[in-house]
């Protein structure tokens, strides 16, 4: 099967899953007792005012009509209007997505560049001191609550030492880079705005490190064990027997194959992180999808909740798809099918 058919097949298979997700979210968000109309008009409003508001929001229609209307909108690419701030949900998401994307991407990037050498080292020096120390450090990462790390990092590097900037995406005094993507690093690179680049990079360091530490453990372990698998295979033994230097064996022959499962983890983590970095976002005042989602749920902002869910599911599934495509490139034995 060639790649195009593979991808298009997978895309079609996404549709029922997405549909299921919309139904699930829709049902869930509508069984919640609580009236967004009430929240909107303020606590001193009379019943009359609330009633009018409910009508305006279409909250009086029967559930299946509301869902049908929503689906029709969805097909037009319209996620509805946020009840909370009366803005199109699409617009809200479009503003927050780049922030989340940037943070997630950089975190995973840091994670991968640390995890690969560590994973190799621990595999080669299996059961050595290095292996144990790495294991403990990595386990500490996965076992410590994120908010704990976040506050500690801020306290040390921002408050006490002043090496790194505080919360937010960019310094207040620095205008955000001009550009369309909303990804500050990319935009500032494209517009050659070095000041914005420096500022946004520095703002990224702490939250990205905070997030990546959690995934470091998983990834290091994953690379370690797949390295071990590969190093036991016949072709490596043959290479060794032929007297190839160990360095060449590891980097040229073993690593590539050992990376296959790592790609899976990276892909899945990406999907998980993009909407799940809520705590990091709260602590670092990062205007991402996670905190938007929390606010929406607390306000019972149905259109926003659904918009978020659909977006996060889409990203998750896309990440999965990309992983599968990457498999084909990394491992010629795996065919797209």
């Amino acid at each position, binding site marked *: 099967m060639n790649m195009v058919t593979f991808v298009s097949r997978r895309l079609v298979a996404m549709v029922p899953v997405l549909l299921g997700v919309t139904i699930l979210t829709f049902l869930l968000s509508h069984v919640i007792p*609580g*009236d967004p109309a*009430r929240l909107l*008009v303020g606590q001193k409003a009379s019943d009359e*005012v609330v009633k009018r508001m409910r009508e305006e929001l279409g909250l009086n229609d029967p559930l299946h009509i509301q869902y049908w209307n929503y689906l029709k909108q969805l097909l037009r690419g319209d996620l509805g209007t946020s009840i909370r701030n009366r803005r199109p949900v699409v617009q809200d998401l479009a503003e927050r997505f780049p922030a989340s994307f940037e943070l997630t991407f950089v975190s995973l990037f840091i994670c991968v560049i640390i995890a690969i050498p560590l994973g190799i080292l621990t595999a080669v020096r299996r059961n050595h001191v290095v292996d144990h120390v790495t294991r403990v450090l990595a386990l500490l990462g996965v076992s410590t609550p994120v908010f704990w790390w976040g506050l500690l990092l801020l306290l040390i590097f921002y408050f006490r030492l002043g090496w790194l900037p505080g919360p937010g995406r960019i310094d207040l005094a620095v205008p955000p880079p001009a550009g369309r993507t909303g990804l500050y690093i990319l935009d500032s690179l494209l517009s050659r705005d070095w000041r914005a680049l420096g500022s946004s990079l520095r703002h990224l*360091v702490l939250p990205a490190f905070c997030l990546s530490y959690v995934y470091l453990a998983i990834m290091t372990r994953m690379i370690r064990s797949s390295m071990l698998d590969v190093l036991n295979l016949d072709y490596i033994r043959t290479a060794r027997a032929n007297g190839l230097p160990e360095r060449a064996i590891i980097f040229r022959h073993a690593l590539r194959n050992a990376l296959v499962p790592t790609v899976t983890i990276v892909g899945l983590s990406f999907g998980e992180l993009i909407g799940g970095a809520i705590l990091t976002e709260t602590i670092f*005042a990062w205007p991402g999808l996670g905190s938007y989602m929390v606010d929406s749920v607390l306000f019972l902002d149905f259109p926003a909740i659904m918009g978020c869910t659909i977006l996060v599911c889409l990203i998750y599934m896309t990440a999965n798809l990309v992983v599968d495509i990457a498999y084909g490139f990394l491992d010629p034995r795996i065919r797209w099918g």
Partner: protein
Amino acid sequence: MRIARSVLVLLVVALLVPLQSGRAAETTLVILIPSDVANLDPAFCMDNVEWRQTYVAYDRLVQYDGKSTKVKPMLAESWDISPDGKVYTFRLRRDVKFWDGTPLDANAVKFSFDRVQKMGKGPSEAFTALSEVKVIDAYTVQMVLRHPFAPFLSCLATNGGGIVNPKVMRQAKNGDLAHEYLSTHLMGSGPYKLKEWVRDQHIILEANPNYWGGKPKVSTVVMKIVPEPGVQRMMLLRGEAHIAEGLLIEQIQKLRGEKGIVVVEEPSQYCCYVYINTQRKPLDNPKVRQALAHAVDYQGIIKSVLQGCGTQMRGPIPTGMWGHSESVFQYQRDVAKAKQLLAEAGVEDLRLKILYSDRVPTWAQEVMILQANFRDIGVKLEPEMYAYATMRDKIDRGDFDLCMGVWMPDYADPYMFMTYWFDSTNFGLAGNRAFYSNPKVDALIRKAAVSTSQPERERLYLDAQKIIMQDCPYIFLYQKNYLLAMRSNVKGFVYNPMLTNIYNLLDMWIE
């Protein structure tokens, strides 16, 4: 590979290059706020955190005078009130222009009030008595009331009384009276206009140099959204922000005496109380309610939760509002009396649920103290925390035994407390959250609402308060002091109890 490496090097270099003066110019005021705001339409928004932006963007006919809750002229130079208290005639200043140069005249005033009423959202509640706005001439406007309403002038100073540029109607869509546009834009004549609003990051206001009341000294005001209180405190201490709104009381107390920081503490009318559902058995028995009120350790709550920054309420009208009287009965912790009252009511093994949310950070602590207090009189209290939206829904439907609540007046009149809380037509979220109904109280407060004589109203309210304290539909916990930590180089801030979260930016400056 080589490209990747050079990009990496570039990134590292960019990271290390120090910024030339990362600090903003000193005419920029940075205020840290815990969350983004939702809506800026003055005919729509009801939250003080939204008024923080709108109040300085729109002018009103009258304004509060500094710290006091009395009003003084703003757009209206002077006014007359007809002897029957139903017709108000305002003469407007002639030198006021909207930001776009349009003169602010009687038509703009009529437009703004008509818009609030047509929209019929929260802010219109302050103007239910208003029947018609008449343009007499270009700079004279007349407001006709349905019935005399003493607090009317005070209502005009609320956020909903802001005068909007009528040209906004060019942005109207599908008959929404430009609501969508005004939700995200400001279009007034005030000292500050909206420069930039990046969701979940910051809101930037810039000074209007041509303001009729003089050019503001602070040229730019940045509201930066920082949700985590500990981080806000770090930023304030490092001098990267001037004012931090989201700090907890303990943190503020720790900041006292810190170099470069001042803590503003002023009595406010932010009241905290417990709603008792008077329709539920056995809470429909006043004796049971009195017993609960006698069980509460008021001073303990104020000492621990508020760190002493508050006072126990005496009756429903807080100190600082006229109508408050020291002669009103105040419940004190008295376990023996409470037990006796419960015995008289014939209630044993009482189990109650208390509803609250994490919206107000101190509620969780207060609930725990109440739990311990009630245990002392043999009442078991089960906390029930819900999302704020859900909690409000439950309050409205009366689906609770006890519930935590807070209230802040919008305008300086005891009406805000008496009518909203006790009139039996206001059941539920409208204000009477205890579902309390007493015809005698109804009669007294309804008479007071339409009377224009303050001494008479004071007398009526006092009588009502006496009955209410015996009926005990609420547990009146405390009146919290307004606490705000700011850098000591911020000058000129004046707190007005009607304007919590709102800054008198026009009079403020940075040294």
